[in-house]
């Protein structure tokens, strides 16, 4: 058990390192001069050379990478080339809104997908099958930013029931920032109307981000449940006298959970790593906006850190999934020991 987990952890660390190396090289090989981008067209050659020397850009790639890794782990993330702001501050302000959006989307879609997959498979229901299939096609086919625009148009413009591209909270509310997570901060401030307002601001972005995720998860879980539901142990559970629903929930769902878990891990990783376009549509103060700006400016200091952070989030989530799978399926350990 311990050896299994430590092996997985080692693999996780290696993948983070690999991802950061690849991103580091690719971003530097791509054309464009960060010094010129930062200092503008009228900067002199001396100024450019000085900028490169200050930011170690005149050194070899391995030396630059080594310096980056050392600084990353010591917490010295440097300054943005473009704005001159501390990178730690930039991420400190923008990470929380992104994580909040990603995690709320994740919880809502996983719960909804699980419930719908169960309801639509434990007994054959053709109309529900068709509805879910239709929703899944739309979800997988339509680009998220377009879905976002349509939702804003319908629910914020035509029927003005929900806030559209207005960020996390109406300007009329003012809540002190403690954690950066708006739902948590409003509750900490004891301001229930603001909490409600924060929720209404989450609805459309969550629906936009969640549609594709929901479509993906519900299809995986449904396929898995349909396969498991025919197995004898579900029938055997019914033969004990429990209802079909209970037999399905207890036995089929548990057995269908493994592919769902893996898929959930991938999805949560993706949500954390990038909700860029959706953030733009809803004017969400997350890392998406910061990142698009920084890539345009070839702002290495910001992008490198972002790659490192998102790779860590992605790998960490999947590492957690590996550990949770051990709890779900005791046979994995036995397979490993063979």
């Amino acid at each position, binding site marked *: 058990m311990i050896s299994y987990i430590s092996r997985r952890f080692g693999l996780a660390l290696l993948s983070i390192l690999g991802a950061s190396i690849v991103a580091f090289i690719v971003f530097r090989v791509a054309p464009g001069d960060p010094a010129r981008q930062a200092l503008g067209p009228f900067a002199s050659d001396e100024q450019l050379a000085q900028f490169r020397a200050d930011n170690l850009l005149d050194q070899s790639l391995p030396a630059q990478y080594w310096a980056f890794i050392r600084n990353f782990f010591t917490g010295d993330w440097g300054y943005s080339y473009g704005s001159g702001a501390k990178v730690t501050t930039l991420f400190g302000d923008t990470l929380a809104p992104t994580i909040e959006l990603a995690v709320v989307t994740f919880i809502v879609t996983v719960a909804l997908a699980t419930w719908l997959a169960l309801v639509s498979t434990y*007994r054959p229901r053709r109309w529900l099958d068709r509805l879910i299939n239709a929703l899944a096609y739309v979800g997988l086919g339509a680009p998220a930013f377009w879905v976002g625009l349509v939702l804003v148009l319908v629910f914020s413009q035509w029927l003005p029931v929900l806030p559209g591209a207005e960020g996390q909270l109406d300007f009329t509310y003012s809540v002190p920032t403690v954690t950066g997570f708006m739902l948590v901060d409003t509750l900490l401030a004891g301001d229930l109307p603001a909490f409600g307002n924060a929720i209404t601001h989450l609805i459309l972005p969550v629906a936009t981000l969640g549609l594709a995720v929901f479509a993906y998860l519900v299809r995986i879980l449904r396929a898995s449940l349909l396969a498991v539901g025919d*197995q*004898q142990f579900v029938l*055997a559970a019914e*033969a*004990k006298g429990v*209802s079909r629903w209970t037999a399905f929930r207890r036995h089929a769902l548990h057995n269908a959970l493994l592919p769902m878990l893996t898929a959930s891990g991938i999805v949560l990783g993706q949500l954390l790593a990038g909700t860029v376009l959706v953030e733009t549509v809803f004017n969400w103060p997350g890392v998406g906006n910061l990142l698009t700006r920084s890539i345009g400016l070839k702002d290495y200091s910001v992008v490198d850190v972002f790659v490192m952070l998102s790779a860590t989030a992605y790998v960490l989530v999947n590492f957690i999934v590996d550990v949770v799978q051990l709890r*779900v399926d005791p046979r994995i350990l036995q397979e490993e020991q063979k």
Partner: protein
Amino acid sequence: MIDVEAIHGTPALRLQDVSIGYSHFADAVSSISFTLERGRRVGIIGESGCGKSTLGLAIMGLLPWNGEVRAGNILIDGADMVTMRERERRRLRGNRVGLIYQDASSSLDPLKRVGTQIAEAITAHAPKTKQINDRVAHALDDVGLAAANAQNYPHELSGGMRQRVAIAIALVNDPVLVIADEPTTALDVTTQAHVLDLLEARVTERDAALLLITHDLGVVADRCELTGVMYRGRLVEWGDTSRVLTDPEHPYTRALVECSHAVIDSDADRLPTMTSWDHDEEGGDDAL
């Protein structure tokens, strides 16, 4: 007229003209009737697809969604499974009637501990049972397993042990009727004999009725006092096992018995086969 029920009590199982079918197809089981008293053992034999497993599922009220009992009554301990509500059926399942289904390696949930799966059968009918662990330990002991086996997952047990667990689950609420559908096909011959001995002993102990569904004539000959033979959805033979084996009425039974003799004698070059026999010759059947 002699009142049979007054002498034997309510029969564990009584089928009256039961017909079962799937979707819009012809009957898979047609007008079967028989009565099984408590404490008796009947073997239902027949080839694959003759409807014997469908019959077992119908008695449990667990036909697949496209299957239905089209006519007749299935009385378990006097209560009609066909007409009662699903909620009442659930109260009988696993309680008054237990099912042991084919291969225990697939009828146990691979992700749940054995003890949990036995406990599920108890709490399904008595949710507030106290000392559930003691009951589980007792149930395991009853089938010759250790109380510690409750902590095992199915994949940690042998095939024979798994089938013992399945028997423990079927018997834990002391049912009046046990249906065993090919309970030993996945086991080797020695284990098969042990498991069947155990099943027979535990069922007899409880004065329950046993309905053993199998294609193995030898198993029925050894262990069941009654034999029913199913052929193409019909019960073509019913009676004391000794009579059915020595003096079969139906050509199919005759062929079946000859087959097993041929194996034992082994002086025949080839096994005898059914050449042709049709229900129509005895009058009336759905087109198959």
